[in-house]
């Protein structure tokens, strides 16, 4: 595909770039794959659910209540989605600031995932807002600057823009806009630095959101260290997600990668595994500190004690052990297993903080409705579809010969 020549007429251009050089009929036929059928099935249920929620409101679509005002859409789409979308940040800082050039091939897919992760997190948030059409209010004329959530909103909005700028080179290369490409080179580093500030800010702020509810969040999860716990764990989740993602995308888009690259990918995966192991160790240490800090080990019994132990042993210690083994045995496969576990672990943690252990002292527990689950799945599916659409067209996994390495 990199040998594509510049098409001349708009019609040809559309055919080349949008329909991948096929006629519309051929293109539609090429869309019928098992994965696409599953995706279509999810959307067939999910889109009506979205419409239903928008027309009939939260009460009709969710199990939210006066006692449990927060549920799956925040827990999954916002708290989990944003936490594992930090891969883009990790790669951008690693490659452009610290000059780890080896990881260059991973930067663009990571930034694309990051951008989509954030974008759909915000869509999920909008679904959750009682008055979604007022989404811009807090950022414009009624700013609650004392609110941690305000900080999150502000940083999220800015960071989404930054990630768009960071990904823009792939778009303009695709469209062969050489002038803009040169200009983008110039602001790139600035964007990466500003982006880092924003990531640190909102990731820790997402943890700080819970600081105001010491009595409503179970003591095993409530801690003055919440901002740090959230930040460190999102780094681990982001790195692990990079591994999972490169595993998946090389399965799916293998044709875009040269054979000789596979060995390189294994090497990079091992490098990421080492990094993830370190971060996960720091996270574990911090979690233990949080436990000891308030003398909270007395709560390690009963239902919440078991939930906590499952989270820490199964989804922090176990992947940590696997990463150590992987590095010792130089096994990329083991890194991949550990990474899947780590990503799941971040999900378990965010679900615990945002749902299981929240409002634990109240008489009524929350469990999502089927529509809440379907809507979250639908947004995730949308994310994958857009990712595939872009990767199939733009120089994300490979580079065009006219536009070699940046910097």
């Amino acid at each position, binding site marked *: 595909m990199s040998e594509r020549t510049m098409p001349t007429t708009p019609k040809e251009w559309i055919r080349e770039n949008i329909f991948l050089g096929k006629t519309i009929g051929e293109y539609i036929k090429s869309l019928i794959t098992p994965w696409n059928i599953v995706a279509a099935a999810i959307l067939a249920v999910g889109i009506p659910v979205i419409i239903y929620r928008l027309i009939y*409101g939260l009460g009709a679509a969710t199990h*939210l209540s006066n006692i449990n005002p927060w549920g799956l859409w925040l827990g999954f789409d916002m708290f989990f989605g944003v936490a594992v979308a930090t891969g883009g940040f990790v790669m951008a800082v690693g490659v452009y600031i610290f000059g780890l050039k080896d990881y260059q091939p991973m930067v663009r897919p990571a930034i694309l995932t990051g951008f989509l992760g954030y974008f759909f997190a915000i869509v999920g948030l909008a679904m959750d807002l009682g*008055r979604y059409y007022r989404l811009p*209010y807090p950022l414009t004329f009624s700013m609650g600057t*004392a609110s941690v959530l305000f900080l999150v909103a502000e940083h999220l909005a800015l960071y989404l823009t930054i990630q768009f700028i960071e990904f823009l080179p792939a778009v303009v290369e695709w469209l062969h806009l050489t002038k803009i490409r040169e200009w983008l080179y110039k602001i790139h580093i600035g964007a990466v630095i500003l982006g880092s500030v924003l990531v640190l800010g909102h990731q820790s702020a997402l943890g700080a959101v819970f*600081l105001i509810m010491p009595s409503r969040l179970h003591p095993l999860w409530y801690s003055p260290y919440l901002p740090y716990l959230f930040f460190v764990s999102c780094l681990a989740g982001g790195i692990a997600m990079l591994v999972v993602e490169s595993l998946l995308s090389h399965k799916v888009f293998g044709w875009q990668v040269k054979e000789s690259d596979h060995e390189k990918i294994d090497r990079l995966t091992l490098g990421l595994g080492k990094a993830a192991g370190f971060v996960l160790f720091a996270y574990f240490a911090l979690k233990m500190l949080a436990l000891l800090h308030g003398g909270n080990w007395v709560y390690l019994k009963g239902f919440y004690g078991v939930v906590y132990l499952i989270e820490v042993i199964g989804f922090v210690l176990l992947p940590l052990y696997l990463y150590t083994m992987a590095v010792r045995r130089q096994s990329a496969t083991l890194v991949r297993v550990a990474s899947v576990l780590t990503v799941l672990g971040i999900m378990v943690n965010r679900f615990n903080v945002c749902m299981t252990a929240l409002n634990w002292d109240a008489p009524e527990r929350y469990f999502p409705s089927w529509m809440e689950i379907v809507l979250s799945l639908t947004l995730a599916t949308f994310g994958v579809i857009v990712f595939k659409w872009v990767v199939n067209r733009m120089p994300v996994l490979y580079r065009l010969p006219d536009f070699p390495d940046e910097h």
Partner: protein
Amino acid sequence: MGIDRRGFLKLMLGAGAAGALGVAREAKANNEDFEGYPDSNGVLVDTSVCIGCRSCEEACDRANNLGKPAKYFADNSVFEKPRRTQNNEFTVVNRFQSEATGNKPVFVKKQCMHCNEPACFAACLAKAFSKSPTGAVVYNQDVCIGCRYCMQACPFYAPTYEYDRAFTPRVRKCTFCLNRISQPGGVPACVEACPTDAILFGKRKDLLKIAQKKLANDSSYVDHIYGQNEVGGTSWMYISKVPFEQLGFKMDLGTTALPKKTYGFLATIPVLHIGLPILLAGFYTIAKAREKSAKEHPEEGRK
């Protein structure tokens, strides 16, 4: 090559300015010394006086146009289960009767506590809440986006949400009858309706004195004024002859105002805004210089 030095400097200045703005803004929000308004009003609830007639509920319903109740206010079957505030019930009276209460019924009125430093106020990212100098914590539905962080932050589970309104849901809670108490001599509808002296309206500091006197003169009271110090103090306060924990009160709230729990974190943000760009720019410069020297002296290698 990414960026020339001048362009880089410009960017850094930009980031610095953004950071400084952050400082100014957050410093104002961090009014750490705010202790509530000294002359604000409050209500003192004496649970040992309340007879459970629910006149307050009825008056509240009428004053706030909350519509027809599911069961008429004289219907005592509502006491069978403890209730919580609802969209159409800003206040509810619950009955507690057990061995701990000497098998006598004790009635407890519940509503928003109108905290001195409200968690709901600090939580709201749209500035929909304010603490009025009258003592009332007031909600403004015109800016609320419906994130329900206020509900999740409230230690008393007081606010409710109109989940059933598809397009214009509102947060609902006791208003402290702001329009009434802003008038000279005005009292909340519930206080006016109460046939006993179970709920007393007045200046919070005077009410505290009354409560202290009651506790001093009658040793059958529990030696605690609930709301005097809980979460930094609340406008509504309770005294009781039965231990508070037997009456559904939360005893684990501590005395720190909840907004203060986040000040420490908010204060680190400006530091981050300024410090991190400088740090990263430093790393970037080092990496670049290394790369350059590696290019000029390839024989030394990269490491």
